[in-house]
């Protein structure tokens, strides 16, 4: 087993950050086009953590008795793993309105549908762009969603074999609303090794 993501040197880490910025920027542009609204994206804060670090991060983020949606999408191929998108209830409601639904049309199912759609867009475009930048081939399963009110509900089904996790925290700014969401990219060791080698090759080719 080679080095994992956490062991990236400074140049490799900067390179990953830059690649993720490009990939995430592409996802924001896609959202703007799809809903015909100008959306901007704060420069994402990117952290690489272990599964233990992720649980600690989520523990701080998911306030007891709060309401969150966690959508997940499996990624297959050279950089296989799983993407999670976490959004709080208020942001998801605002997002649903940005997708053109009126107050009286919005219910739990509609919110879930919009969160799934945004997850699919952000996850597939971000991972797809990253894959194209490093010459990888990937495909996606349909995303799933669940509502959680505490960290335990997430912990119960958490696979601790994901040791290399990239957390991208950002805020989508639409014309009227600020929507906070977080994309979490989980990859297993084989994929992380592929990603690390690809980043290294990418730097050599520059």
């Amino acid at each position: 087993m080679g080095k994992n993501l956490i062991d990236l040197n400074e140049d490799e880490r900067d390179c990953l950050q830059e690649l993720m910025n490009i990939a995430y920027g592409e996802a924001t542009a896609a959202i703007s086009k799809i809903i015909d609204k100008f959306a901007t994206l704060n420069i994402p804060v990117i952290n690489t953590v272990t599964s233990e670090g992720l649980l600690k991060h989520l523990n701080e983020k998911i306030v007891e008795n709060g309401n969150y949606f966690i959508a997940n999408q499996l990624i297959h191929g050279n950089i296989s793993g799983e993407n999670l998108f976490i959004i709080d209830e208020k942001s998801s409601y605002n997002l649903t309105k940005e997708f053109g639904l009126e107050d009286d049309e919005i219910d739990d199912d509609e919110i879930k549908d919009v969160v799934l759609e945004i997850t699919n867009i952000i996850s597939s475009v971000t991972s797809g762009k990253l894959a194209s930048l490093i010459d990888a081939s990937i495909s996606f399963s349909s995303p799933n969603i669940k509502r959680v009110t505490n960290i335990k509900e997430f912990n119960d089904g958490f696979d601790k074999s994901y040791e290399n996790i990239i957390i991208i925290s950002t805020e989508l700014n639409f014309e009227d609303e600020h929507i906070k969401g977080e994309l979490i990219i989980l990859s297993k060791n084989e994929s992380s090794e592929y990603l690390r080698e690809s980043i290294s090759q990418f730097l050599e080719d520059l």
Partner: protein
Amino acid sequence: MIDINNNVIFNSVDNGIIILDKELNILAWNRWLEILTYKKEADVINKNICELYENINEKKLKRKVKSVLVTNNPSFYNVDQNRYLIKIPVESITNSIYKYMQQNITIVPYDKDKELVCLFIYNTTNLRETNHKLELLNEELVEMTHRDPLTKLSNRRYFSMQSKKIQSYSKRNDTCLSLIVLDIDKFKNINDTYGHLVGDEVIIHIARALEKNLRDSDIISRFGGEEFVVLLQDCSIENAYLVAEKIREYIEKAEVIIDENTTIKYTVSLGVAKFDEQKDNDNLEQTFARADEALYEAKTSGRNKVVKAK
């Protein structure tokens, strides 16, 4: 119309396949759909899918098609409310949970330049039926784990789970939390005189009396035998005492009708305590212990009374 009729996969696959333009006009319709919808491809070609199937949310489908064309990635229609896109009756005698075939839809890019997408329709009826049955069984299991079978009140296990959540909410919002412990006076006499079935009637009677005299937000639980515990959210010790007194009076005046000639009157004793972070060492079990001591005092000092904990 796109000529893919001779494509073997298109017409032999066990899924529905539709090719749509970005305005949702149908350009291809495979044999699976022809057979199940009784609509020939020639009958649906160049028609808007939303005009053919009024259940389809046009705004949503257009958005998903646009999403596929912009991102060049698949989009999925798998949220619970979208149980089907194309209305296809389920003709099953043995399984009748769903009237129409349950479907998952994947939309993929077909021709980006011509702005065409392909819809794959998967039959998920069997999977959903299995899930539905599992959900029902799960609900039953949760009910069995959390409810007292005789009174249908929550049991001690559920009370313990809920009280932890309520305690942390109460601490965060700086609100009072009080507890009432209640026990039927001389319950053994009722059982010995009238038998256990009548004893059960009295237990059920008290459960309904508690529900009648308490708020929806209060947690009422049968701890076992003839002992009941109530957790009152956002309630001071003074108010908890008044509530306990109201319950005591209500039960004192009530009668349990057994048959035409028999009615039973009974009384209860109650102990009341307020959760005190320091006194109780941040442990609601200690509050319960103090309320239980107060109940003991109510019993030993004559019964049919409410005593506040020290």
